């Protein structure tokens, strides 16, 4: 009795096991760059045109013709657009493609080896593991990066990107890649920029296509390469691409002035505290009166807003639309949480200069605003003073207060 039952069950499980094994992985040969369909849908929700399957395929083909494929990336061969020091084809070839080594023993496929399971093949930040991670991995396709030395939403510098790769981002899933050598890090940074530039051009083409295309009209109709509209579109691509490349080449590090002479003194901290709780800066409105990061916690980051609030889709109410997005591969919208400043853990780096950059120009893509217009440079340093004492404040770590620690609150 027992045994026949056992046998039947074991057979069932065996079949199940085999079918699980067969069900995935068969399609691993070459992963293509997929179109940003979430953005296509966002444009439709915004009230622009809806692109049909043929139009979407045409856009994807156009992008592939410009940028190549994940296995064999290309640099746009468009007269008048070059990539001085931004994207180097040699380096891309090291970072792209399947994992392996070339004849001379150099490692290839670095992106697929180290990054793809989080950041995704197109750099959409929605790789296989992404839905478990909080914050979600970065979507490069907007060109927006958080922890950098440049102004506002300006593009990051080469050093900004490689610093993140070396240090990782504490408290998030973004690892430190200090095991990689300089050349490898360099290639990865080039590849991140390549995906960023590609993604941004893709967004702009989608915007134009959703705005301009008639029913059934293709963005680039290869059957009529001589037509006026074709030429117009090609020069549009060229212009957009040139603008995107410029935004990367022209980005500039914000100079950091030396701290005021009384920096570190009680008076400096008190000034900082005043600003922190003032309605000019609103720091405490978001970070909370306790600075535990529990102030305003219901906002979203820009990556999410692009396809929700900005196109009149409320993540909490328009659930049907959100589900449609998720079916297209979007990650479920999540609130952006202000940092708990009592832990003394800064994701973008803990040097005073890092905090200066964060507070002076805000954290791009997140609700954290730039204080540059409200505060003078000295006042920013005072605020930093106050922020840096928060972890030692009585509320944070009663037992850890140094003897000579001043009374702050």
């Amino acid at each position: 009795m027992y045994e026949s039952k056992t046998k039947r069950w074991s057979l069932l499980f065996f079949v199940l096991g085999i079918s699980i094994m067969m069900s995935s992985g068969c399609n691993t040969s070459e992963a293509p760059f997929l179109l940003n369909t979430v953005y296509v849908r966002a444009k439709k929700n915004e009230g622009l045109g809806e692109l049909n399957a043929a139009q979407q395929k045409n856009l994807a083909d156009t992008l592939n013709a410009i940028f190549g494929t994940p296995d064999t990336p290309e640099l746009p061969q468009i007269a008048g657009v070059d990539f001085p020091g931004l994207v180097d084809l040699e380096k891309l070839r090291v970072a792209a493609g399947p994992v392996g080594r070339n004849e001379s023993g150099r490692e290839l496929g670095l992106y697929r080896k180290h990054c793809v399971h989080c950041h995704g093949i197109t750099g959409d930040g929605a790789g296989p593991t992404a839905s478990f991670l909080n914050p979600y991995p970065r979507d490069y396709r907007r060109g927006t990066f958080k922890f950098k030395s440049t102004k506002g939403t300006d593009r990051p510098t080469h050093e900004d990107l490689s610093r993140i790769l070396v240090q990782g981002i504490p408290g998030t899933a973004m690892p430190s890649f200090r095991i990689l050598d300089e050349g490898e890090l360099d290639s990865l940074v080039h590849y991140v920029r390549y995906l960023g530039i590609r993604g941004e051009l893709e967004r702009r083409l989608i915007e134009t296509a959703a705005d301009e295309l008639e029913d059934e009209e293709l963005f680039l109709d290869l059957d009529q390469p001589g037509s006026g509209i074709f030429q117009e579109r090609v020069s549009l691509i060229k212009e957009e691409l040139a603008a995107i490349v410029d935004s990367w080449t022209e980005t500039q590090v914000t100079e950091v002035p030396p701290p005021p002479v009384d920096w570190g003194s009680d008076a400096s901290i008190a000034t900082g505290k005043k600003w922190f709780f003032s309605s000019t800066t609103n720091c405490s409105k978001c970070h909370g009166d306790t600075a535990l990061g529990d102030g305003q916690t219901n906002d979203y980051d820009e990556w999410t807003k692009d396809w929700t609030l900005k196109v009149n889709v409320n993540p909490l109410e328009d659930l049907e639309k959100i589900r449609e997005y998720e079916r297209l591969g979007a990650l479920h919208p999540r609130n952006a949480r202000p940092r708990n400043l009592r832990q003394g853990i800064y994701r973008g780096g803990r040097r005073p200069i890092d905090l200066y950059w964060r507070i002076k120009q805000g954290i791009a893509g997140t609700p954290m605003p730039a204080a540059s217009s409200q505060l003078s440079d000295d006042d920013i340093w005072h605020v930093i003073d106050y922020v840096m004492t928060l972890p030692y404040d009585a509320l944070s770590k009663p037992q850890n207060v140094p003897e000579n620690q001043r009374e702050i609150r």
Partner: protein
Amino acid sequence: MTLAWTTFPLIWVGSLVTTYDAGMAVPDWPSTYGYNLLFYPWQTWIAGPWDLFIEHGHRLLGAFVGLITIAFLVVTFRCDRRRWMQWMALGMLIAVIAQGVLGGSRVLFDSRFLALIHGCTGPIFFSLTVIACVLTSPHTTREQAGTCSSAGHTLQRLSLFTAIFAFLQLVLGAHLRHVAVDTSHEVFRVTVFFHLLMATVVLAHGIALALHVRRHFHDYRPLRRAANGLALLLCLQMMLGGATWVVKYSWPTWLADFQFAASYTVTAQSLPQSLIVTAHVALGSLILATALMLFVRSLHLLQPSLNATSPNHRGLLGVVV
């Protein structure tokens, strides 16, 4: 015995290969960069990059295990008169060759899918070696069991189910490790969910098994030891599983308010990361093997006829030890 002891490191090194994604470090097979496997200059191997070191090491070790399997086959044919034991030895040789070819094809076709299968069948071979170990050990052949009781049946069923679940769990785990680059996050999510579900199922079975053995087979030492060992391994494996998550993806958000979680930075391919992940994989094989071992012992308990024709184990031991 020797065979099992050399196969286990093979599993470790094999999983190291995946941990470091070194599977394609050597682009050709069966040769290594054009050299015959055995004649690849060892200086280049030792001094070369880490991933080449482990990939080539995995190949050498695999070849070594193959040789031992041949030796085992010869010894079995000469010393063990149990027909089915001889068949098993032959089956093992075929299995090890198939596993090698599978590993080789994985390299030749650069296929993650074959790598996944290679990763799933490795533990099966390891389990075979452990079972062979049990079947040829003097313990098994000497001990006269044969309690044809319902307790024995339960034991048999529990251990079989533990083994099946453990294998399914291994397959699920292999899916998590060998994710295709274009796997969607939903698929991964579902796989993780089943991996966790299966973990609880295996754990529950393992503990039930240990309790059952404790109650009914207290005096049968090999059985008791194996069952307790299994329960212990399972608990350890759970912890390693959690640790694997943390060293790869950091602490979950609900712990973010704790200092240790907020300040933790994942470090790619750091020593703790690769050790923990690799240990998690290797322990999975060990659990499967232990469960199967218990199953084989329970079969033997129920059917003492299996060792009616006792082998000449002095000869066997002589060669194996």
